[in-house]
């Protein structure tokens, strides 16, 4: 498999990606997760204003063959969600790191980002865990 793991992002063991921009992080699911799921047909997003802790369910991504929860990688308040995904879930397949983003979270504790993997660590994680 040719992994697609951008260098400027952080990653979780549940295959979410995180892009930091100041006090805000944007969250989506990785190319690996997308490849596992196949054609995404439904995306459930959190409500704007919702406050989440790490590992709480942020939403879910459902493909033809499976459903997978997406977890909050950090604690914070959901300030924006990618509502077009409701009607166009295929963006998750087509551009997981761009149009397929799911939610933007205002960081409660920026130190939590240190617990996430960088691109090199995530690639290593994929090699170890997913063969």
């Amino acid at each position, binding site marked *: 498999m040719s992994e697609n793991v951008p260098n400027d992002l952080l990653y979780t063991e549940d295959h979410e990606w995180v892009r930091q921009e100041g006090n805000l992080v944007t969250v989506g699911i990785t190319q690996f997760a997308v*490849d596992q799921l*196949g*054609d995404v*047909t*439904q995306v459930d997003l959190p409500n704007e204003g919702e406050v989440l802790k790490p590992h709480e369910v942020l939403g*879910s991504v*459902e*493909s*033809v*063959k499976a*459903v997978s929860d997406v977890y909050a990688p950090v604690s914070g308040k959901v300030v924006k969600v990618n509502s077009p995904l409701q009607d166009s879930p295929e963006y998750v*397949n087509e551009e997981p790191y761009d149009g397929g983003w799911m939610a933007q979270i205002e960081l409660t504790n920026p130190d939590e980002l240190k617990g996430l993997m960088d691109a090199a660590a995530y690639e290593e994680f994929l090699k170890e865990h997913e*063969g």
Partner: protein
Amino acid sequence: MNAASATPPRTTPLCQAHRRLGAKMIDFGGWLMPVNYPSGILEEHKATRTAVGVFDVCHMGEVHFRGTRAAEAVQRLVTNQVGKLYDGRAMYTVACNPKGGIVDDLIVYRVGPEHFLIVVNAANIAKDYQHFVEQVGAKCEIRNASDETGLISFQGPKAQACLAPLTRAPLATLKPFHFLPDVEVAGRPVWLARTGYTGEDGFEIFCGAPDAEHLWQAMLDACVSVGGKPVGLGARDTLRLEARLSLYGNDLTDETTPLEAGLDWVVKFDAGDFIGREALLRQRDAGLQRKLAGFVMLGRGIARHGYPIHDPSTGAKVGEVTSGTVGPTVGKNIGLGYVPAPLARAGARLLIDCRGKPTEAEVVEGPFYRR
């Protein structure tokens, strides 16, 4: 994957061909099979509905019954009427246990008056063969030819047009559920049946296992220009469920009867003294407590195997989803599940518990998709 725990899955003669095509392979009932190719389930589904899909179904089992009492033996095993078959005619049926539960769903092919072929589900080959031998092994020769037999399915509205250049067999006059033994496709000896599991017109081609890869490639080449594609198990499931064809292990089990499953059209009580007949007669006379209902989701949500079904008027759990998916062609999320008979009527409402979200669904009769 924890590879150490179980025996490795079995492979079909087309395993390397799938890998070369970039298929995603999964263990399905003990078989390493393609779930989808790089174009994805939705594209494969669409290709089958609009052009042709080519399916590796070599994992399915082929059991031959031969001898002067072969017809009698097969009739003892199956609920449909074997006596109505003639040479070159096939039929869908089930085999039951003495309680009327379904041992497997099958297609019986009459090759000759003393030769029948039964095609069984891959996961049930060992169980079925044992059942067949135990029950009727004294009546005729029963041979499990699954390992040496390949099977490729060629399904879709353009199947006949695409297959025609590969064979001199009279495709245009071959009717549904009929077959031609001893013809050639792409220069190899095959049995050619007009059967399938997608709700489309199409063919299933039995071959010697060593010829499977040659035929697979020839069939792919024959349909590529019209947009035909190899199709994996993922789209096989969406296609069969849209056509409301049952899947053994999900919709049909040892614990469900053909009457409950809506397969009463393959139960011919006058056919003979088949196994399960008495139990099914009793169930018919007593009335069915539960039935397999087809439903479309009204709310947002995809029903999945095992999700609880509730009665909206009482809130009580009344059943479980046995199959559920996106219906790419019908544009709705669809499913099947056993519910109390009054809730299985068209128009009845159900609540499907989609991972904690109660989601409304409406019962519909008949196939979700008709070509």
